[in-house]
């Protein structure tokens, strides 16, 4: 590491990982998020691309949120089962990031790889109104990217997408290997 800025111990790295100290106003986040969406919108040509961009930004956030959160909420233990990680997502993760738990967690009837996290009104969409011509746009694609990064980094690679269903549904489709591993863990 080059010593461009000769200084003592970095305050950021020395800080303890305690409970997050404060909460910030929703208005500030909402305005920042709106600028983010507008910025992405200027550079894309279709709704799918816009959602992909938002998912990419959410990915960036999710990767960095996971470590600190796990260290705080589940010290010394790692989730190894699919159900465990999903309950962690629905409860502690959602509460730490969005201030409240997700409304529902469901499994698809016909597919053991697919789960749904359902929220009536996701926090990121609080001040978002979607015009009719873009009606398939769901800015919760940001949350979908975030969730995908979290699951991937936790060892449960999956594809997550956002849909308009019972409010907003994040559809999680785990990789085959994850389900196979889970089954073999149960059989042990």
């Amino acid at each position, binding site marked *: 590491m*080059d010593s*461009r*800025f000769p*200084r003592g111990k*970095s305050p*950021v*790295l020395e800080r303890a990982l305690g409970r*997050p*100290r*404060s*909460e*910030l*106003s*929703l*208005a*500030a*986040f909402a*305005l*920042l*998020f709106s*600028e*983010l969406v*507008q*910025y992405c919108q200027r*550079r894309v040509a279709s709704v799918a691309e816009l959602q992909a961009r938002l998912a*990419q*930004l*959410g990915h*960036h*956030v999710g990767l*960095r*949120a996971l470590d*600190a959160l796990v260290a705080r909420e589940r010290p010394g233990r790692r989730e190894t089962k699919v159900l465990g990680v999903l309950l962690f997502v629905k409860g502690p993760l959602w509460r*730490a*990031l*969005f*201030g*409240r738990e997700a409304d529902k967690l469901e499994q698809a009837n016909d597919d053991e790889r697919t789960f749904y996290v359902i929220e009536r009104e996701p*926090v990121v969409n*609080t*001040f978002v*109104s979607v015009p009719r011509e873009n009606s398939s746009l769901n800015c919760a694609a940001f949350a979908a990217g975030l969730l995908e990064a979290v699951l991937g980094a936790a060892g449960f690679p999956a594809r997550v997408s956002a849909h308009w269903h019972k409010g907003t549904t994040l559809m999680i489709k785990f990789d085959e290997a994850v389900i196979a591993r889970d089954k073999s863990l149960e059989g042990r």
Partner: protein
Amino acid sequence: MSRSPGRKQENHKISRELFVLTYGALVAQLCKEYEKDEDVNACLDRMGYSIGIRLIDDFLARSAVRKCRSYSETADMIAQVAFKMYLGVTPSVSCNSVTGNEFSLILDKNPLVDFVEELPAERASLCYCNLLCGVIRGALEMVHLAAEVSFLQDRLKGDAVTEIGITFLRKPEDRRHRRN
């Protein structure tokens, strides 16, 4: 937007981490798309400006403050009320010039750089928090106070503190003659 009447917003707050990480994701995306630091800084300033012109409404609605009678009152208001409301920190204010229209906000703790240790070598002149300058400038413009806002010192670049300089662009005596 359809929202059932009488349902009040339970939660006007979000986690600080989400906000800070989202800002970081934004800056990272801009760095990927623009090669020059000046372009990223300008883009952040522009985005901050559009945020500021809308933030001022929220600020005035929630804080119900009296009209400021001088530039130093305005600077104090920004530091003690606005920063506290939106970022949870209170910078200290100092006046830089005898004419009374240049002020500095000295940020001891800056939540936006919670997770930033240092700037990468190839981005040495990036103003990471330049959004804040745009926000202040936009908000002030909406209350008819033209100002130039920029970073005078930045801890990420090796300075001792983070300092935001606000220069009001009209002479203080002019305000006395305006009938508002």
